[in-house]
């Protein structure tokens, strides 16, 4: 792992990471759709506990995955969503608006990654 060999490997690793991004992007988009569904349900005042728990877990997974693919802003947004959906958090109208905004921002972040 000397610095010269590592420097040579960076482009190859980046290319392979891009391939993995393409492979897993549908799965990441599926996770985002759970977050979107929960945000929409909360905005309508009807977020079932099971969907809240699923969205909370999904936000946690997104927080771990997005930054690993270089999307640090996506991780920050997903962490915020995870906190908003935590069992001890209060769910109200401002929370619903913020969750919708977070889901929209994550969607843009995903679309922007080449």
């Amino acid at each position, binding site marked *: *792992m000397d610095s010269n060999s590592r420097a040579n490997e960076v482009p*190859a*690793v980046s290319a392979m990471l891009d391939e*993995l991004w393409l*492979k897993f992007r549908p799965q990441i988009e599926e996770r985002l759709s759970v977050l979107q569904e929960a945000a929409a349900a909360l905005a309508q005042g009807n977020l079932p506990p099971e969907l809240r728990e699923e969205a909370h877990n999904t936000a946690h997974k997104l927080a771990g*995955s997005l930054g*690993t*693919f270089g999307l*640090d802003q996506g991780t920050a947004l997903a962490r915020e969503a995870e906190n908003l959906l935590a069992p001890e958090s209060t769910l109200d109208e401002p929370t619903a608006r913020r969750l919708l905004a977070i889901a929209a921002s994550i969607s843009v972040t995903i679309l922007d990654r080449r």
Partner: protein
Amino acid sequence: MSHRILIIDDEDDIREVAALSLETVAGWEVAVASSGAQGIVRAAEYNPDAILLDVMMPGMDGPTTFRELRKNPITSRIPVLLLTAKVQSTDQRRFADLGVEAILFKPFDPLTLPNQIAGVLGWN
């Protein structure tokens, strides 16, 4: 020097990126498992130099998997590094109390993950 690492994580994207990192950047040998139960079996078969263990997994979670690994004489001495997206200090203290070698955080940088692991385990 080559090392053998077992990655235990239920999320296939994280598993594959970590494997890419450890194999391509560091040149280490990697085995993977997608659950705690599978990881316990794989650890005994593969006898890795270290285990990278996800915390939040369905079924058997990371801390439970770690305790099971410690109970088995074949795997009890293998260094375990927890991998987690939990950033709260209460969680970190709880994980540190388990007696793991280190706690690494998601997201991780695939280019620096091997150095993080090597640094913790004195492989530099």
